[in-house]
Protein backbone atom coordinates (compact mmCIF):
# COMPACT_ATOMS: atom_id res chain seq x y z
CA UNK A 1 0.00 0.00 0.00
CA UNK A 2 1.36 3.37 -1.04
CA UNK A 3 1.59 6.02 1.60
CA UNK A 4 2.50 9.52 0.59
CA UNK A 5 4.87 11.02 3.08
CA UNK A 6 4.50 14.63 1.98
CA UNK A 7 1.28 15.20 3.88
CA UNK A 8 1.88 16.78 7.19
CA UNK A 9 -0.46 17.45 10.08
CA UNK A 10 0.17 21.04 11.05
CA UNK A 11 -1.56 21.97 14.26
CA UNK A 12 -4.86 20.56 15.47
CA UNK A 13 -6.95 21.14 12.38
CA UNK A 14 -4.75 21.60 9.31
CA UNK A 15 -3.02 19.21 6.94
CA UNK A 16 -0.65 20.03 4.09
CA UNK A 17 -1.57 17.91 1.09
CA UNK A 18 1.29 18.64 -1.29
CA UNK A 19 -0.81 19.30 -4.40
CA UNK A 20 -0.99 15.64 -5.35
CA UNK A 21 -4.72 15.55 -5.85
CA UNK A 22 -6.56 17.71 -8.35
CA UNK A 23 -10.05 18.58 -9.45
CA UNK A 24 -10.13 16.79 -12.80
CA UNK A 25 -13.58 17.98 -13.78
CA UNK A 26 -16.58 19.78 -12.34
CA UNK A 27 -20.19 20.24 -13.42
CA UNK A 28 -23.09 22.37 -12.24
CA UNK A 29 -26.86 22.18 -12.69
CA UNK A 30 -28.92 25.24 -11.81
CA UNK A 31 -32.56 25.92 -10.94
CA UNK A 32 -34.78 28.72 -12.25
CA UNK A 33 -33.80 31.54 -9.92
CA UNK A 34 -30.12 30.73 -10.24
CA UNK A 35 -30.43 30.61 -14.01
CA UNK A 36 -31.64 34.21 -13.91
CA UNK A 37 -28.75 35.28 -11.71
CA UNK A 38 -25.47 36.98 -12.66
CA UNK A 39 -23.45 33.76 -12.96
CA UNK A 40 -25.96 31.89 -15.07
CA UNK A 41 -23.70 31.57 -18.11
CA UNK A 42 -21.17 29.63 -16.08
CA UNK A 43 -23.52 26.79 -15.17
CA UNK A 44 -23.65 23.69 -17.33
CA UNK A 45 -27.39 23.06 -17.29
CA UNK A 46 -30.36 25.25 -16.48
CA UNK A 47 -33.90 24.46 -15.42
CA UNK A 48 -36.88 26.78 -15.69
CA UNK A 49 -38.89 25.45 -12.80
CA UNK A 50 -38.31 23.65 -9.54
CA UNK A 51 -40.38 20.54 -10.18
CA UNK A 52 -38.79 19.34 -13.44
CA UNK A 53 -42.03 17.50 -14.24
CA UNK A 54 -41.23 15.08 -11.42
CA UNK A 55 -43.72 13.89 -8.80
CA UNK A 56 -42.06 15.73 -5.96
CA UNK A 57 -39.46 18.36 -5.20
CA UNK A 58 -37.32 15.64 -3.67
CA UNK A 59 -37.24 13.70 -6.93
CA UNK A 60 -36.40 16.85 -8.84
CA UNK A 61 -33.46 17.50 -6.53
CA UNK A 62 -32.24 13.95 -6.97
CA UNK A 63 -32.43 14.27 -10.72
CA UNK A 64 -30.38 17.47 -10.70
CA UNK A 65 -27.78 15.76 -8.55
CA UNK A 66 -27.56 12.76 -10.88
CA UNK A 67 -27.21 15.04 -13.88
CA UNK A 68 -24.39 16.97 -12.26
CA UNK A 69 -22.62 13.68 -11.50
CA UNK A 70 -22.95 12.33 -15.02
CA UNK A 71 -21.91 15.65 -16.52
CA UNK A 72 -18.79 15.78 -14.36
CA UNK A 73 -17.90 12.21 -15.19
CA UNK A 74 -18.39 12.95 -18.88
CA UNK A 75 -16.12 15.98 -18.70
CA UNK A 76 -13.44 13.89 -17.01
CA UNK A 77 -13.78 11.23 -19.68
CA UNK A 78 -14.55 8.67 -17.00
CA UNK A 79 -17.51 6.52 -16.07
CA UNK A 80 -19.07 5.56 -12.73
CA UNK A 81 -17.18 2.25 -12.84
CA UNK A 82 -13.89 4.17 -12.77
CA UNK A 83 -14.78 5.83 -9.48
CA UNK A 84 -13.45 4.25 -6.31
CA UNK A 85 -15.82 6.14 -4.02
CA UNK A 86 -18.75 8.53 -4.20
CA UNK A 87 -18.86 11.05 -1.38
CA UNK A 88 -22.13 12.89 -1.25
CA UNK A 89 -24.44 14.84 1.00
CA UNK A 90 -27.34 17.26 0.91
CA UNK A 91 -29.80 19.02 3.19
CA UNK A 92 -32.56 16.44 3.32
CA UNK A 93 -33.12 14.07 6.20
CA UNK A 94 -30.80 11.08 6.03
CA UNK A 95 -29.13 12.76 2.99
CA UNK A 96 -31.65 10.89 0.91
CA UNK A 97 -30.98 12.75 -2.35
CA UNK A 98 -27.37 11.59 -2.29
CA UNK A 99 -28.38 8.08 -1.34
CA UNK A 100 -30.83 7.77 -4.24
CA UNK A 101 -28.17 9.20 -6.54
CA UNK A 102 -25.68 6.66 -5.23
CA UNK A 103 -28.24 3.99 -5.97
CA UNK A 104 -28.24 5.06 -9.64
CA UNK A 105 -24.49 5.44 -9.87
CA UNK A 106 -23.70 2.13 -8.12
CA UNK A 107 -20.38 3.45 -6.82
CA UNK A 108 -19.18 2.52 -3.29
CA UNK A 109 -20.87 5.24 -1.31
CA UNK A 110 -19.89 7.34 1.69
CA UNK A 111 -22.76 9.59 2.65
CA UNK A 112 -21.80 12.66 4.61
CA UNK A 113 -23.71 15.42 6.31
CA UNK A 114 -22.17 18.87 6.52
CA UNK A 115 -25.21 20.84 5.48
CA UNK A 116 -23.95 23.69 3.33
CA UNK A 117 -20.31 22.75 4.05
CA UNK A 118 -20.76 19.37 2.35
CA UNK A 119 -18.74 20.27 -0.75
CA UNK A 120 -15.65 21.15 1.28
CA UNK A 121 -16.11 18.17 3.58
CA UNK A 122 -16.37 15.88 0.57
CA UNK A 123 -13.36 17.41 -1.16
CA UNK A 124 -11.33 17.15 2.06
CA UNK A 125 -12.17 13.50 2.67
CA UNK A 126 -11.80 12.62 -1.00
CA UNK A 127 -8.36 14.19 -1.17
CA UNK A 128 -7.28 12.35 1.96
CA UNK A 129 -8.56 9.04 0.60
CA UNK A 130 -6.70 9.43 -2.68
CA UNK A 131 -3.53 10.72 -1.11
CA UNK A 132 -3.63 7.99 1.48
CA UNK A 133 -3.47 5.49 -1.33
CA UNK A 134 -7.00 4.21 -0.86
CA UNK A 135 -8.42 5.45 -4.13
CA UNK A 136 -7.49 6.84 -7.50
CA UNK A 137 -10.67 8.60 -8.59
CA UNK A 138 -13.38 9.96 -6.34
CA UNK A 139 -16.71 11.59 -7.18
CA UNK A 140 -17.85 14.31 -4.79
CA UNK A 141 -21.30 15.81 -5.25
CA UNK A 142 -23.87 17.87 -3.40
CA UNK A 143 -27.26 19.42 -4.02
CA UNK A 144 -29.89 21.61 -2.44
CA UNK A 145 -33.41 22.53 -3.46
CA UNK A 146 -35.34 25.53 -2.19
CA UNK A 147 -38.68 23.76 -1.93
CA UNK A 148 -37.52 20.47 -0.45
CA UNK A 149 -35.49 22.35 2.15
CA UNK A 150 -38.32 24.73 3.06
CA UNK A 151 -40.76 21.85 3.29
CA UNK A 152 -38.52 19.96 5.67
CA UNK A 153 -36.98 22.66 7.80
CA UNK A 154 -39.51 25.44 7.79
CA UNK A 155 -42.96 25.85 6.27
CA UNK A 156 -44.97 24.42 3.35
CA UNK A 157 -44.05 26.20 0.16
CA UNK A 158 -47.41 27.94 -0.26
CA UNK A 159 -47.52 29.24 3.31
CA UNK A 160 -47.80 32.99 3.53
CA UNK A 161 -44.97 34.22 5.66
CA UNK A 162 -42.89 37.35 5.65
CA UNK A 163 -39.23 36.40 5.81
CA UNK A 164 -36.97 38.69 7.81
CA UNK A 165 -34.44 40.82 5.95
CA UNK A 166 -31.51 38.84 7.29
CA UNK A 167 -32.86 35.54 5.95
CA UNK A 168 -31.40 33.76 2.93
CA UNK A 169 -32.77 31.85 -0.04
CA UNK A 170 -31.84 28.18 -0.37
CA UNK A 171 -30.26 27.63 -3.77
CA UNK A 172 -31.81 25.06 -6.09
CA UNK A 173 -29.05 23.22 -7.88
CA UNK A 174 -26.33 20.62 -7.78
CA UNK A 175 -22.57 20.42 -8.27
CA UNK A 176 -20.25 17.47 -8.81
CA UNK A 177 -16.47 17.08 -8.85
CA UNK A 178 -14.18 14.31 -10.04
CA UNK A 179 -11.02 14.17 -7.93
CA UNK A 180 -7.95 12.31 -9.10
CA UNK A 181 -4.17 12.33 -9.25
CA UNK A 182 -2.84 15.73 -10.29
CA UNK A 183 -1.51 15.88 -13.81
CA UNK A 184 -3.13 18.35 -16.14
CA UNK A 185 -4.63 21.78 -15.69
CA UNK A 186 -6.92 20.91 -12.81
CA UNK A 187 -6.48 23.00 -9.65
CA UNK A 188 -4.82 21.03 -6.88
CA UNK A 189 -5.69 20.66 -3.23
CA UNK A 190 -2.76 22.14 -1.35
CA UNK A 191 -3.96 22.18 2.26
CA UNK A 192 -7.03 21.33 4.29
CA UNK A 193 -8.24 22.85 7.55
CA UNK A 194 -11.07 20.86 9.07
CA UNK A 195 -13.45 22.86 11.18
CA UNK A 196 -14.66 22.32 14.70
CA UNK A 197 -18.32 22.80 15.56
CA UNK A 198 -18.80 26.37 16.72
CA UNK A 199 -22.06 27.36 18.39
CA UNK A 200 -22.56 31.08 18.80
CA UNK A 201 -25.88 30.64 20.55
CA UNK A 202 -27.98 31.77 17.60
CA UNK A 203 -31.48 30.28 17.83
CA UNK A 204 -33.25 31.88 14.92
CA UNK A 205 -33.31 29.41 11.99
CA UNK A 206 -33.66 32.36 9.62
CA UNK A 207 -30.44 33.96 10.90
CA UNK A 208 -28.08 31.34 9.50
CA UNK A 209 -25.53 33.91 8.35
CA UNK A 210 -24.89 35.05 11.90
CA UNK A 211 -25.01 31.46 13.12
CA UNK A 212 -22.29 30.34 10.72
CA UNK A 213 -19.98 33.37 10.59
CA UNK A 214 -18.24 32.56 13.91
CA UNK A 215 -17.48 29.06 12.62
CA UNK A 216 -16.06 30.49 9.39
CA UNK A 217 -13.93 32.97 11.30
CA UNK A 218 -12.71 30.24 13.65
CA UNK A 219 -11.62 27.94 10.82
CA UNK A 220 -10.01 30.72 8.78
CA UNK A 221 -8.17 32.01 11.85
CA UNK A 222 -6.81 28.60 12.75
CA UNK A 223 -5.88 28.02 9.11
CA UNK A 224 -3.75 31.18 9.07
CA UNK A 225 -2.20 30.52 12.47
CA UNK A 226 -1.42 26.84 11.95
CA UNK A 227 -0.05 27.27 8.43
CA UNK A 228 1.66 30.57 9.32
CA UNK A 229 -0.06 32.44 6.52
CA UNK A 230 -1.91 35.71 6.17
CA UNK A 231 -4.77 36.76 3.89
CA UNK A 232 -2.40 38.15 1.25
CA UNK A 233 -1.19 34.60 0.56
CA UNK A 234 -4.39 34.07 -1.41
CA UNK A 235 -5.84 35.66 -4.53
CA UNK A 236 -9.31 34.87 -3.25
CA UNK A 237 -10.90 33.86 0.02
CA UNK A 238 -14.34 32.48 -0.74
CA UNK A 239 -16.96 31.55 1.84
CA UNK A 240 -19.94 29.40 0.97
CA UNK A 241 -23.13 31.04 2.08
CA UNK A 242 -22.73 33.52 4.86
CA UNK A 243 -24.83 36.04 2.96
CA UNK A 244 -24.67 39.78 3.43
CA UNK A 245 -25.08 39.64 7.20
CA UNK A 246 -22.71 36.74 7.84
CA UNK A 247 -20.03 38.04 5.49
CA UNK A 248 -19.73 41.28 7.43
CA UNK A 249 -19.72 39.46 10.75
CA UNK A 250 -16.98 37.13 9.53
CA UNK A 251 -14.84 40.08 8.44
CA UNK A 252 -15.36 41.82 11.76
CA UNK A 253 -14.49 38.78 13.89
CA UNK A 254 -11.31 38.15 11.91
CA UNK A 255 -10.34 41.82 11.98
CA UNK A 256 -10.70 41.68 15.75
CA UNK A 257 -8.28 38.77 15.78
CA UNK A 258 -5.74 40.59 13.64
CA UNK A 259 -6.56 39.38 10.12
CA UNK A 260 -8.02 41.77 7.57
CA UNK A 261 -9.45 39.56 4.84
CA UNK A 262 -11.57 42.22 3.16
CA UNK A 263 -9.36 42.91 0.10
CA UNK A 264 -9.44 39.22 -0.90
CA UNK A 265 -12.75 38.08 0.44
CA UNK A 266 -16.17 37.45 -1.00
CA UNK A 267 -19.07 35.10 -0.33
CA UNK A 268 -20.96 32.86 -2.73
CA UNK A 269 -24.26 33.74 -1.10
CA UNK A 270 -24.00 37.37 -2.12
CA UNK A 271 -22.75 36.55 -5.61
CA UNK A 272 -25.30 34.05 -6.85
CA UNK A 273 -28.32 36.33 -7.15
CA UNK A 274 -29.06 39.86 -8.29
CA UNK A 275 -30.42 42.21 -5.59
CA UNK A 276 -33.66 42.57 -7.52
CA UNK A 277 -34.32 38.84 -7.20
CA UNK A 278 -35.56 39.54 -3.67
CA UNK A 279 -33.45 37.09 -1.75
CA UNK A 280 -32.90 39.25 1.33
CA UNK A 281 -29.39 38.48 2.60
CA UNK A 282 -28.48 36.22 -0.33
CA UNK A 283 -28.24 32.56 -1.25
CA UNK A 284 -27.60 29.57 0.98
CA UNK A 285 -27.63 25.79 0.73
CA UNK A 286 -25.15 23.13 -0.34
CA UNK A 287 -25.47 24.12 -3.97
CA UNK A 288 -24.64 27.76 -3.32
CA UNK A 289 -20.91 27.22 -3.02
CA UNK A 290 -21.09 24.37 -5.53
CA UNK A 291 -22.60 26.52 -8.28
CA UNK A 292 -20.50 29.61 -7.65
CA UNK A 293 -17.15 27.91 -7.11
CA UNK A 294 -17.45 24.99 -9.52
CA UNK A 295 -19.22 27.08 -12.12
CA UNK A 296 -17.45 30.41 -12.02
CA UNK A 297 -14.23 30.42 -9.97
CA UNK A 298 -13.10 26.95 -10.97
CA UNK A 299 -13.12 28.08 -14.60
CA UNK A 300 -11.13 31.17 -13.65
CA UNK A 301 -8.58 28.88 -12.02
CA UNK A 302 -8.39 26.72 -15.13
CA UNK A 303 -7.66 29.88 -17.10
CA UNK A 304 -4.93 30.75 -14.57
CA UNK A 305 -6.70 34.00 -13.65
CA UNK A 306 -6.70 32.86 -10.04
CA UNK A 307 -3.74 30.97 -8.64
CA UNK A 308 -4.50 30.49 -4.96
CA UNK A 309 -7.97 30.19 -3.54
CA UNK A 310 -9.02 29.53 0.03
CA UNK A 311 -12.39 27.84 -0.20
CA UNK A 312 -14.33 28.01 3.06
CA UNK A 313 -17.64 26.17 3.02
CA UNK A 314 -19.92 26.91 5.96
CA UNK A 315 -22.72 24.74 7.28
CA UNK A 316 -25.48 25.19 9.83
CA UNK A 317 -25.86 21.79 11.43
CA UNK A 318 -29.21 22.15 13.16
CA UNK A 319 -32.05 19.69 12.63
CA UNK A 320 -35.77 20.44 12.11
CA UNK A 321 -36.29 19.31 15.70
CA UNK A 322 -33.65 21.41 17.44
CA UNK A 323 -35.32 24.69 16.56
CA UNK A 324 -38.58 23.47 18.04
CA UNK A 325 -36.79 22.47 21.19
CA UNK A 326 -35.26 25.95 21.48
CA UNK A 327 -31.73 24.69 20.94
CA UNK A 328 -29.15 26.95 19.34
CA UNK A 329 -27.64 26.35 15.91
CA UNK A 330 -24.27 24.59 15.83
CA UNK A 331 -22.21 25.51 12.77
CA UNK A 332 -19.03 24.39 11.07
CA UNK A 333 -16.68 25.60 8.36
CA UNK A 334 -14.18 23.57 6.37
CA UNK A 335 -11.37 25.25 4.45
CA UNK A 336 -9.38 24.04 1.48
CA UNK A 337 -6.41 25.78 0.00
CA UNK A 338 -6.60 25.16 -3.75
CA UNK A 339 -3.81 26.14 -6.10
CA UNK A 340 -3.22 25.91 -9.82
Amino acid sequence: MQVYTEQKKVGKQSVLMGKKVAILAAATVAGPKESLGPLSNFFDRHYEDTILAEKSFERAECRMLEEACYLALGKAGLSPEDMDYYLGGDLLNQVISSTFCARSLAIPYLGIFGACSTLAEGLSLGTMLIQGGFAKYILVATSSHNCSAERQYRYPTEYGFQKPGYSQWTVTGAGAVVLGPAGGKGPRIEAITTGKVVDAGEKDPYALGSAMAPAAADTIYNHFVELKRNPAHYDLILSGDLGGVGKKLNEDILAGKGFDITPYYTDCGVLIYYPHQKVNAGGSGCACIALVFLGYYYQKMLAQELKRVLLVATGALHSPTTFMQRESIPAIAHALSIET
Partner: protein
Amino acid sequence: MGSYFTAFLVGGLICVVGQLLFDLTPFTPGHILSGFVVAGGILGGLGIYDKLIDFAGAGALLPIASFGNSLAKGAMLEAARTGVVGILTGMFELTSSGITSAIVFSFFMAMFFKPRG
Protein backbone atom coordinates in the same frame (compact mmCIF):
# COMPACT_ATOMS: atom_id res chain seq x y z
CA MET B 1 -73.07 45.78 12.34
CA GLY B 2 -70.06 47.91 11.66
CA SER B 3 -69.43 50.18 8.75
CA TYR B 4 -66.94 50.09 5.90
CA PHE B 5 -64.82 52.69 7.60
CA THR B 6 -64.71 51.06 11.03
CA ALA B 7 -64.11 47.64 9.46
CA PHE B 8 -61.10 48.94 7.57
CA LEU B 9 -59.77 50.89 10.53
CA VAL B 10 -60.15 48.30 13.27
CA GLY B 11 -59.09 45.41 11.03
CA GLY B 12 -56.05 47.38 9.96
CA LEU B 13 -55.13 48.31 13.52
CA ILE B 14 -55.43 44.75 14.80
CA CYS B 15 -53.08 43.71 11.98
CA VAL B 16 -50.69 46.49 12.96
CA VAL B 17 -50.50 45.00 16.47
CA GLY B 18 -49.76 41.66 14.85
CA GLN B 19 -47.07 43.12 12.62
CA LEU B 20 -45.35 44.83 15.54
CA LEU B 21 -45.31 41.53 17.40
CA PHE B 22 -43.92 39.75 14.30
CA ASP B 23 -41.14 42.28 13.83
CA LEU B 24 -40.20 43.12 17.40
CA THR B 25 -40.48 39.77 19.16
CA PRO B 26 -38.70 36.46 18.49
CA PHE B 27 -42.00 34.57 18.40
CA THR B 28 -43.22 32.67 15.37
CA PRO B 29 -46.54 33.49 13.66
CA GLY B 30 -47.94 30.37 15.33
CA HIS B 31 -47.11 31.79 18.75
CA ILE B 32 -48.48 35.23 18.00
CA LEU B 33 -51.71 34.05 16.40
CA SER B 34 -52.27 31.70 19.32
CA GLY B 35 -51.88 34.74 21.53
CA PHE B 36 -54.53 36.57 19.52
CA VAL B 37 -56.95 33.70 19.93
CA VAL B 38 -56.40 33.58 23.67
CA ALA B 39 -56.97 37.33 23.84
CA GLY B 40 -60.15 36.92 21.82
CA GLY B 41 -61.35 34.22 24.15
CA ILE B 42 -60.73 36.29 27.25
CA LEU B 43 -62.34 39.39 25.74
CA GLY B 44 -65.22 37.19 24.68
CA GLY B 45 -65.63 35.92 28.20
CA LEU B 46 -65.78 39.50 29.42
CA GLY B 47 -68.35 40.38 26.79
CA ILE B 48 -66.09 43.03 25.30
CA TYR B 49 -65.36 41.39 21.95
CA ASP B 50 -69.01 41.36 20.89
CA LYS B 51 -69.13 45.10 21.40
CA LEU B 52 -66.13 45.40 19.11
CA ILE B 53 -67.96 43.33 16.49
CA ASP B 54 -70.98 45.65 16.74
CA PHE B 55 -68.70 48.60 16.17
CA ALA B 56 -66.36 47.24 13.54
CA GLY B 57 -68.27 44.42 11.85
CA ALA B 58 -65.91 42.44 9.65
CA GLY B 59 -63.01 44.40 11.14
CA ALA B 60 -63.48 42.39 14.32
CA LEU B 61 -65.06 39.25 12.82
CA LEU B 62 -62.24 38.40 10.47
CA PRO B 63 -59.16 38.67 12.68
CA ILE B 64 -58.27 35.33 14.27
CA ALA B 65 -59.08 36.69 17.73
CA SER B 66 -62.71 36.39 16.73
CA PHE B 67 -62.21 32.64 16.58
CA GLY B 68 -61.33 32.69 20.28
CA ASN B 69 -64.35 34.82 20.98
CA SER B 70 -66.65 32.42 19.12
CA LEU B 71 -65.26 29.42 20.97
CA ALA B 72 -65.76 31.12 24.32
CA LYS B 73 -69.24 32.34 23.43
CA GLY B 74 -70.26 28.91 22.18
CA ALA B 75 -69.14 27.32 25.40
CA MET B 76 -70.76 29.97 27.59
CA LEU B 77 -74.10 30.08 25.75
CA GLU B 78 -74.55 26.33 25.85
CA ALA B 79 -73.50 26.21 29.50
CA ALA B 80 -76.11 28.83 30.30
CA ARG B 81 -78.71 26.65 28.54
CA THR B 82 -77.83 23.15 29.72
CA GLY B 83 -75.41 23.49 32.61
CA VAL B 84 -71.66 23.01 32.93
CA VAL B 85 -71.53 20.15 30.39
CA GLY B 86 -72.58 22.77 27.85
CA ILE B 87 -68.99 24.01 27.84
CA LEU B 88 -68.05 20.80 26.05
CA THR B 89 -71.09 20.42 23.82
CA GLY B 90 -71.36 24.02 22.69
CA MET B 91 -67.68 24.78 22.09
CA PHE B 92 -67.61 24.43 18.32
CA GLU B 93 -71.15 25.58 17.62
CA LEU B 94 -70.22 29.04 16.42
CA THR B 95 -66.90 28.11 14.86
CA SER B 96 -68.16 25.11 12.94
CA SER B 97 -68.51 27.12 9.77
CA GLY B 98 -64.88 28.23 9.83
CA ILE B 99 -63.38 24.86 10.67
CA THR B 100 -65.58 22.88 8.31
CA SER B 101 -64.91 25.17 5.38
CA ALA B 102 -61.16 25.15 6.07
CA ILE B 103 -61.09 21.35 6.04
CA VAL B 104 -63.36 20.88 3.04
CA PHE B 105 -61.73 23.55 0.91
CA SER B 106 -58.27 22.27 1.80
CA PHE B 107 -59.28 18.82 0.67
CA PHE B 108 -60.44 20.08 -2.70
CA MET B 109 -57.49 22.41 -3.16
CA ALA B 110 -55.13 19.51 -2.45
CA MET B 111 -57.00 17.53 -5.07
CA PHE B 112 -56.68 20.13 -7.79
CA PHE B 113 -53.51 22.06 -7.03
CA LYS B 114 -49.86 21.23 -6.55
CA PRO B 115 -47.40 23.27 -4.50
CA ARG B 116 -45.38 25.59 -6.64
CA GLY B 117 -42.77 26.83 -4.22
